[in-house]
């Protein structure tokens, strides 16, 4: 070791991997930790879903029994139907609202900054707060209906919150209020990146605004629409705090959603195995949504690579 010190002027050529160790660490450690936790947590949940675990995880094997009892339960069936309804209604309506807001804001209107902040601010609020506040507003005895009654219009009725057929729409309303600002931001981003030269050319050709939107601008928003839909779908599937604070699954069990059922089984009913089975079913629903998206992305990339 002593002669290393005497050779100070000449820096020994470190092997490439040692020299680049810091960057490998910075890249790989976080990414691997993140990937490892996702993979291992998912595998763990799948394993638990086949065990008779109740209060705490235990080993054992019950085959598909947890799955069959989840699938047979009224709660899950209602939750699944609700997810179809809530998921599609929320995704469509929040994308539409977001697009409409973006187009309106893109009209070079005054006070765009203020308006944009107004549409974005609900994103800053926690789901629990959103749910609580909307439960005040939508409760017929406390909120909007009472206000209108007190103002004199006593036949006014807005009681979706206590109507088991309509209650799911109150969640749609609150969710749209909370998250269409994000869709708006994405669409606005898309509108702002449309090539202005093409628009100018079209204007010179005498195309009106409606025609320009239909023929040029909206088609170019297609990729963003997919992003919006995927992000909102993910939001719809994992909706939890919002429902818990707004309806807590009620009236009765009319507004159950899969995430609520998972939490309820795992922690409220202390049926970890069944809760895990419900979680795996939820993951399968997610995959059913994500796989087509991934395929679409793959095709897109292939096309881009060939172009």
């Amino acid at each position, binding site marked *: 070791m002593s002669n290393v010190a005497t050779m100070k002027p000449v820096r020994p050529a470190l092997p490439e991997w040692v020299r680049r160790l810091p960057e490998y660490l910075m890249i790989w450690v976080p990414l691997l930790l993140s990937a490892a936790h996702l993979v291992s947590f998912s595998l763990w949940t799948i394993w638990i879903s086949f065990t008779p675990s109740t209060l705490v995880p235990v080993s054992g094997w019950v085959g598909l029994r947890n799955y069959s009892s989840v699938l047979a339960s*009224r709660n899950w069936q209602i939750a699944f139907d609700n997810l179809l309804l809530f998921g599609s209604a929320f995704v469509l309506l929040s994308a539409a609202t977001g697009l409409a807001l973006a187009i309106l804001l893109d009209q070079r209107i005054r006070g765009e900054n203020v308006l944009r902040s107004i549409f974005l601010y609900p994103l800053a609020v926690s789901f629990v707060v959103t749910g609580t506040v909307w439960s005040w507003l939508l409760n017929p005895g406390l909120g909007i209906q009472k206000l209108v009654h007190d103002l004199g219009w006593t036949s006014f009725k807005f009681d979706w919150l206590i109507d088991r057929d309509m209650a799911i729409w109150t969640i749609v309303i609150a969710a749209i209020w909370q998250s269409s600002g994000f869709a708006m931001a994405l669409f606005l981003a898309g509108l702002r990146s449309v090539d202005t030269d093409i628009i100018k050319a079209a204007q010179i050709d005498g195309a009106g605004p409606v025609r320009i939107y239909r023929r040029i601008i909206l088609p170019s928003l297609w990729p963003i629409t997919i992003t919006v839909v995927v992000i909102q779908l993910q939001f719809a599937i994992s909706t939890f705090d919002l429902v818990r604070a707004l309806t807590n699954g009620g009236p009765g069990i*009319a507004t159950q959603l899969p995430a609520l059922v998972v939490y309820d089984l795992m922690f409220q009913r202390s049926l970890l195995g069944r809760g895990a089975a419900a979680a795996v079913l939820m993951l399968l629903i997610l995959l059913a949504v994500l796989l087509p998206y991934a395929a679409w992305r793959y095709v897109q990339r292939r096309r881009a690579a060939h172009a």
Partner: protein
Amino acid sequence: MPITTTRRRLLAGSAAALALPAFARAQGAVKPRLTAISQWSAGSDGAAITALGKKFEEKGGVWQHSPVPGFTTEMMNKLRAQIMAGDPPACSQLKGPEIAAWSKIAPTVDLDAVVAAAGYEKVVAPDLAKLHKPAGKWIALPLQIYSTNMLFLSKRAMDKAKADKIPVTWADFNDLAEKMKAGGVASPIANGGTRPDDGQKFEAALAGISPAAYRAAIMNLDKKALEGPEIKAAFAQVRKIADWMDPNVGAQHFSTNLKRFVDGDMGMMIMGGWAQGVLRNAGFKFEDFTIAPGPSDNGKPVFLLNADAFIFWQRKEADLQAGQTLMAQLVMDPAIQTMYSQITGSIPVRTDVDLSGEGWSEGQRTTSAALKSAIASNQALLSMAHNMAQENGMTAAMIDVITEYVKNKTIKPEQAATRLADAVEGAR
């Protein structure tokens, strides 16, 4: 866990304080410390546990309470995490059959010696005691008792109905509700619409119609009883109750309605004694309402027991062990139980506490008398809605059916009874 308080008999709470120095010497003069988890964070619950903590500190202990606000589920998540981490709290809030279930996943403290020293067993209702010693040894201690089917009557609504007789049977109850309706009370029933609230309506109905059927069907899950006519009758009664409620209540908590109840816009409420603590904290007067045992068709009070308790988890640390002993002594102490119940509106677990004195309300005396009578006539039952009769999974399965029935008036009582039996089968 070594408990070395045999030299002195702790007969009453005042004696516990005297005994402490001797106990501390035996433990090597450590300062007792207690780590505790509960969901009691707000209102009268928060005030009561805080007062208990003060007493603990007065006795020289270090009080380390970790409240988990919100639902019981979050409190249990916290407890589960601590247990899985091998670091359970010295004691935590837990009740009913969950005590037995949770005691299987982590070692608990054998409290037999300290319970015997306090002579506690003799003064606790036997059905209740059983829940706290699932394997024969005391591992948990009940702290306070509620009956979930007390009947709260609004004075002003009674005036409107020109009624002064407290209903005894469900028929009386239904008559009174009709009278109130006719007398201009907007909603004769003031209950809320949460899941446990809906569960309470059903259990009160069934227990009032037939305590024996309740015991068989709900507590023992007897298949025949679950398909019996009493269940259908109970659902029919629940429908009447639901029809008299303000439909707008949605999933709101009962406390949202308290003002309208006192004002006489709402007439009756089937609720536990905790409502009394809430009413008093809110500044309402005892003259505004009357508390009576819930309707019972055989005329004798039916008591649907709900008891909050602490379970004690094994710890190796000497100071925590000393803290557990001190806590156990405090929880069993009649003076402490008196203090606690007077804050929350419950009644003491100890049957030997005299409620005639200052600080007790008429409602609490009624509740206590109802308990004594119910024990004598074998009508002291365990509440389903508040997780005393069954473990959480079974309770939740039952309440699914009940809450759907309350909110969906197209379901027939017969249908609901079938669904309840099916739900029980599915959750077994």
